[in-house]
C-alpha cells in the first residue's frame, strides 16, 4: 500500500490573515484582495509589532478589509473610520493605526474627516482603495466616479467631475502621498512598507477594478482587461506635483510616491506645546483587586 504524502499548502501571508474568515466576500476580478496581499507582505516585511497594530475600516466592500486581518479589527460606521482611528491613536499612542477603506467611504461621506486628519497630521496610515464606485450597494456613482461614467444612479452618464485625492490630501498637509494601481503589486508593497514606518498622516490611493459594477457597465471588460488597461495607461512619476496627477477617462494614470516630507504630527506637537503642563499619568495602583483579572494572567 502506498501512502499519499499530506500536502501542506500554506498561504504565504496567512499569519496576518484571519483564516477563519476566508473566503472573502469579494467578486472574481476584484482588486481589493490584491491590495490586501501587498499590505500583508508589507506588514510582515517591516517587522512592526502586530500586537500593537490596529486596523479600522468604514462601510463598503473595502470596509471589509479590517475583518480579514489578524490584527485588532474595527469595522465602524460609514465614513467614520478616520475619527475612530483618531480616538484609538490619541488614547494609546503606542498603537500603529491603519485606516483601510474605500473611496466612497473615505472621500464622500467621510471627506470632512479625511481633510481634518490630514490637516492635524494625525499619525495614521490611510489606504484608500479606489474602485471608483459604490460597490457594496450595487454600483452607484461616487465622488471618485469619472465624469460621463454610467452607474445605477447616473443612467445618462455622471454629470460631475471626479475628485483628485492626492491633490486634496497634499493640500491638507499629509506627509506622505502615493498612488498605485492593483497592477503594481510589488511597488504597492514597497510603498506600504515605507509608509508603515513613517510618522504622521500618510495616504495611499490604490486604483482598483470593480468588474461587476464599474468595468462591466462602462464596457471596460473584466478584471484582467483592467490590469492590461492599468499597465498601458500608468506612468510612474515619483515626486510629481499632485496638481498634475488628476485622472482623466482614457488618459494617463500617474502613479508613484508624490509626497514624502517631514512635519510634526499632532501628538508630538501637543506634547511640545504643552511642555510642563502635560503630566505623564501612570496607571493608579488599584487599592483592591477588581473582579476578574488582568489580561496578562
Amino acid at each position, binding site marked *: 500500500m502506498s501512502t499519499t504524502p499530506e500536502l501542506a499548502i500554506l498561504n504565504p501571508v496567512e499569519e496576518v490573515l*484571519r483564516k*477563519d*474568515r476566508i473566503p472573502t466576500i469579494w467578486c472574481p476580478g476584484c482588486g481589493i484582495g490584491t491590495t490586501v496581499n501587498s499590505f500583508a507582505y508589507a506588514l510582515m516585511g517591516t517587522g512592526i509589532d502586530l*500586537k*500593537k497594530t*490596529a486596523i*479600522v475600516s468604514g462601510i463598503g466592500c473595502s470596509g471589509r478589509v479590517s*475583518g480579514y486581518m*489578524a*490584527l*485588532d*479589527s*474595527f*469595522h*465602524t*460606521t460609514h*465614513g*467614520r473610520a*478616520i*475619527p*475612530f*482611528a*483618531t*480616538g*484609538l*491613536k*490619541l*488614547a*494609546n499612542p*503606542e*498603537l500603529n493605526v491603519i485606516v483601510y477603506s474605500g473611496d466612497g467611504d473615505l472621500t464622500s461621506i467621510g471627506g*470632512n*474627516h479625511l*481633510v*481634518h486628519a490630514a490637516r492635524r497630521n494625525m499619525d495614521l496610515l490611510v489606504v484608500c482603495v479606489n474602485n471608483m464606485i459604490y460597490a457594496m450597494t450595487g454600483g452607484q456613482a461616487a465622488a471618485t466616479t469619472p465624469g460621463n461614467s454610467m452607474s445605477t444612479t447616473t443612467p445618462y452618464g455622471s454629470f460631475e467631475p471626479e475628485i483628485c485625492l492626492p491633490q486634496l490630501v497634499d493640500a491638507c498637509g499629509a506627509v506622505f502621498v502615493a498612488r498605485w494601481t492593483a497592477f503594481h503589486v510589488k511597488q504597492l508593497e514597497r510603498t506600504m512598507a515605507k509608509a508603515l514606518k513613517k510618522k504622521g498622516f500618510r495616504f495611499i490611493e490604490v486604483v482598483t477594478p470593480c468588474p461587476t459594477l464599474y468595468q462591466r457597465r462602462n464596457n471596460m471588460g473584466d478584471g484582467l482587461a483592467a490590469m492590461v488597461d492599468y499597465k498601458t495607461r500608468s506612468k510612474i512619476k515619483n515626486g510629481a506635483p499632485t496638481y498634475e496627477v488628476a485622472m482623466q477617462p482614457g488618459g494617463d494614470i500617474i502613479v508613484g510616491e508624490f509626497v514624502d516630507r517631514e512635519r510634526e504630527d499632532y501628538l508630538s506637537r*501637543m506634547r511640545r506645546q*504643552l511642555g510642563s*503642563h*502635560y*503630566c*505623564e*499619568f501612570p496607571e*493608579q495602583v*488599584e*487599592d*483592591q483587586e*477588581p*473582579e*476578574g*483579572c*488582568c*489580561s496578562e*494572567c
Partner: protein
Amino acid sequence: MTHADPRCVLTGTHFINGDAACCEGALAAGARFAAGYPITPSTEVVERFASRAPAVGGIFIQMEDELAASIALQGMVWAGQKSFTVTSGPGFSLMMEHIGLAAMTETPCVFVNVQRGGPSTGLPTLPAQGDMMQARFGSHGDYSTISLVPSTPQECFDLTVTAFNLAEQFRVPVMFMMDECVGHMTEKVVIPEASEIELYPRRRASKPPGEFLLFEPGPDLVPEMAHAGEGYNVYVTGLTHDNKGYPLMNPKMQRELVTRQFEKISRAADQLTIVESEGVEGADVVIVAYGITARVSRRAIQMARDKGLKVGLLRLICVWPFPEKLIRELAPKVKALVMPELNMGQVVIELERCAGGKCKVISVPHPGGTVHKPAEILEAIERGAQ
C-alpha cells in the same frame, strides 16, 4: 469597586455651575479623554476639560463635527480609556448613529446632552427637555440604554460619576440629560475625597487570547472587554455579530444579540430605579418630574400644601429605563399623577402606560425657553385632587 484616583479629584467645596460640575464628575470617574464639538449651552464642560486634562495625562480633542466626536470617543474607549462627549440638541441629533454603534458594540461611554429648545437650531441659550424620547429611541434599530437626569449642579457631579459607573457595569452608552438651566446654574458643589468615590472598573478579559470570546455574555449577560493592543486581535463591528465579534447576519443571531442587549438592562430594573421621593406616602396627587422641572414643582407643591392638598413629589433621576414597577405600584394609591415637562409631553406617555388607567395622569406640557410657572403646575394638582 475601586476608588477614584486622587490626582483627578478636586476635593473641596466649590461654587460652580452644572457644566463645570459635570466636567469634574467625569474626571473623578476616571475619564481623562474626551472628544467634542462646541455647542451652546454645553461648551463649558469641554472648555474646562480641555484646561484640566493635560495635568492628568489626558487629552481633549475638538473634532470637525459631532459625527467625528461621537465616534472618536469610542476609539478612545477601545484603546482602553474612559471617554465621553458633550453636546446639545443639534449635535445630539448628529450623534445618533454612533449611539447606536456604541449600543451594538457594547462600548461603555457617556454622552452628555445639555438640552436646549428645539426643534432645529431652536433656542440655543434657553432650556428645554425636548430630547428625552430621542435619548431613548433616537438611533435606528432596537436597543436599550440608560438616561440619567440631574436637577442640581451637585447632581451634575454625583450623577456623572454614576453615569460612568453604569456605562462600565452594563457596557452601554449612558445618556446624561442635563438642561440649560441646570448647566448654567451656579450653586455649592461638594466634591468628596477620592477614597469616598466608588468606581466600577472596566470588565476586562479574564481569559487569555485564544480562549476569550469578545462578546460572550457573563452571568449578568454583560460581556468582558479586551482592548486594541492587548494581543487579543479583537474584532468589533456594527454588524450583527456572534460571540467572537464576527459578522453573522441571520434572524437567529439577531434575536440572540438584540434580546440579550435588551435583557442586560431590563434584568437590572430594580437597580436602575433611581428616584427621590418626598411626601408620596398618603398623597392624593404625586408630581412625577425630572431635572429642572422637579425643582420648579417643589414650589407648586408648597402652594398646594398651603391649600391643604396632600401632594408628593417623585423625582425621576434615572428616566430610562422607566421605573415601571414603581409607577404600577403607585398608581392605584393616588388620585392623580401629574407630570410637568419642558416638552410637549414625552415621558408622560410612558407614565400613562405604566399607570394603566388606575389613576388620572395629567400632563403639563411646556415648549421650553423658560421653566413652568408654579401656578401652572398648581392648577394641574388641583384638577388631579378633585
